[in-house]
């Protein structure tokens, strides 16, 4: 049994003070977001409505340490359907920002930059839909130079940066070119067996 008084009633105010979290308390748990969610089809445990309700109740640690807050892909399939006009992906970004500040990390690694080969062309910065990549000056191999840097809290692991990088310097771990090729070949082999 959950004991509500162990919850943190100020958590909802903290979320609402975070950019993107303003409309948290509008949620009346209708479940429209849940019905529209594409992630839920792959991840049965994921339920945006429930996460928002946990935040309203003040289940601070449960929300911030939950792998669920990192699952939203910001496809915004739910947003146009929400009768309370809550931008849920923005709200989840607010959860993530608080979580990162508190030392939590996403369960899956964000896009990774190979700083040795990055030429700082800025293409990834341009294409990233979540403004998760920026160019920063860093000391690489003994020289100060511009390289791409990924903000793990914002990266949604969509892989657009990896697909567009001209120097193959940015990659999403587990979804790297090599790993994807292996998976394609494996699938094809299995398909071949079935056909044979």
């Amino acid at each position, binding site marked *: 049994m*959950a004991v*509500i008084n162990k919850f943190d*009633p100020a958590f909802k*105010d903290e979320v609402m003070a975070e950019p993107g979290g303003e409309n948290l308390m509008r949620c009346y*748990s209708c479940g429209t977001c849940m019905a529209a969610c594409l992630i839920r089809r792959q991840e049965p445990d994921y339920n945006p409505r*429930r996460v928002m*309700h*946990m935040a309203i109740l003040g289940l601070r640690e449960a929300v911030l340490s939950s792998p669920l807050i990192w699952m939203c892909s910001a496809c915004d399939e739910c947003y146009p359907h929400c009768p309370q006009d809550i931008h849920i992906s923005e709200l989840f970004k607010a959860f993530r920002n608080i979580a990162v500040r508190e030392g939590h990390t996403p369960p899956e690694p964000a896009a990774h930059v190979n700083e040795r080969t990055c030429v700082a062309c800025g293409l990834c910065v341009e294409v990233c839909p979540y403004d998760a990549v920026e160019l920063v000056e860093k000391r690489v191999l003994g020289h100060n130079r511009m390289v791409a840097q990924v903000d793990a809290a914002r990266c949604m692991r969509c892989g657009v940066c990896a697909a567009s990088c001209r120097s193959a310097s940015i990659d999403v771990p587990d979804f790297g070119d090599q790993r994807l090729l292996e998976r394609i070949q494996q699938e094809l082999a299995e398909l071949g067996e079935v056909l044979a």
Partner: protein
Amino acid sequence: MVDAARHPNIELLTYTEVKRVEGFIGNFKVLVEQKPRYVIADRCTGCGDCAPVCPIEVPNEFEEGIAPRKAIYIPHSQAVPLVYTIDLDNCIECYKCVDACGKLDAIDFSQQPRQQWLDVGSIVVATGFDSFDPTPLLEYGYGRYENVITTLELERINNSAGPTAGRIMRPSDGKMPQSVAFVQCVGSRDERYNIYCSGFCCMYTIKNALQWKQTYPDAEITIFYMDIRTPSKGYEEFYRRAREAGIRFIQGRPSRITQDEATGNLFIQAEDQSLGQVIEMETELVVLSTAAVPRADADDMGSILNISRSPSGFFMEYHPKLRPVDSPTDGVFLAGAAQGPKDIPASVAQGAGAAARAARILSSDTWDIEPIVAHVWEDRCVMAQGKKCGICATKCPYNSIVTTEGQAARVTPAKCHGCGACVAECPHNAITQMHFTDAQIFAQLHALLAREPEKKIVAFMCNWCSYGGADTAGTSHFEYPPQSRGIRVMCSARMDQDFVYEAYRLGAGMVLVSGCHPQDCHYITGQQVGAERFARLADRLEKMGISPQRFRVEWISAAEGAKYAQVMREMHETLQGLDPEALREENERVRPDLERRLRRIPEIPDVAEALETVVCV
């Protein structure tokens, strides 16, 4: 209230009870009893010198018993008229108040109840509601745990003119609670107590919660609800404002409240349906949003005023959609929560509506009443011959028939609405209905069944529903067999079993009796009277030897044109499936029995003459 008291055309009779109501629209006589205040109203200035010297303290009803009052008291500081009253049940007659009153000499212990008859044209019933007592709901601990209170108690604690001058404090220790939980639907939407939704509790709870939150922003406020119902203008916006203010709404009805003996705090157990988990919450105060229930004396009031009550116990309106302000008794109107749970805007609207409806009567010299009313042939009524009967009075939904031993039943035409239940139920054919006399209906039957009766379907239809349904079938071009023959009466209550017997005696192939769906009857209980009669009749017809498929009872609304056509088609198919020769034989077989049952029909005034002049078409 002050304005009403000052108005030259309004006479305010407070502390007065209605004892009896006689008469009818425009001509009511009302017996009222003014209770003794033991204070002379004309002399009392409301100065209040008497109350402080009174040694008696009893719980103050207006303050929900939270604060005391004296035995000489005014209900609350804004009472109209501002006149003190002595509660003689608690007064010890020490006469200290008499001394305190001094020169005004307003106290008079010799006052007696005073009865008077009033002549009134119309009556508005605005007797309000009671608040449900949550003590029987043991799971919430009301009455056992001091810090479980009702909303009305909170309203008093929260009121700046109340006993705490608006400082919220909890009963057990007088401390300002930092956390509060509201529990919705206490005693309403509950099969054990009241099945209806009280309607306005969601809004007053949100109001109290928001008011609290605005005064004390750090307070932890939780509302346990099943459904939040905020249907009126601006209400949903108000609900959203409450959510945005940080009030916690948990969907789930608490199953149990327990108390911590040491702190007086309460533990609420509920399922949070959004979380999908059972939760427990500790809170310093619990407020129960109790149901609005009919006044304890609603039954007495209903019989005094001659108005019926809905299944929920509130006074019943004439029609739930089209005449929500009128009671079924003409000239008596309903306003506010006496008719059903209602919030302030709805009560004000209904009150204004009722006043306007009442004023129409007061400003008219004459009043048109229903021409279709019941009429008693006094020479035929067995009550006049000293026998016991009175069936007609028990069947009348409007109490418009008075029966006195040794006298013929008496109908008050101004109260009769013309359903015809009494006419059909009278075992001695001593009542008729204007415009729907037995003579007229028998004549119609004879005309319709003059030729090839065994091929005909006779349909008795009520004016408001099934006749409307047949009409809809026609205007919508739903085809049904031309063998059907309709006879319209005002209500299924008017469909005398003799009409059905006569139809079969004349050789009709099929008989349909049809009327409104039970909840739609335009005559309160008319349909029920009909339905009970037809249930008995179906059994009797079968025992007499009439094939059961030849008699059908259907409830068809005015919108159900398709259903009417379908019923007609089915009955026609059934009729075609019967062997004509067997049908004729069956009719011949039951004819002697039917003739025996109908032997007294020609004695009914006008029937014999009418049947002689029937023109067959």
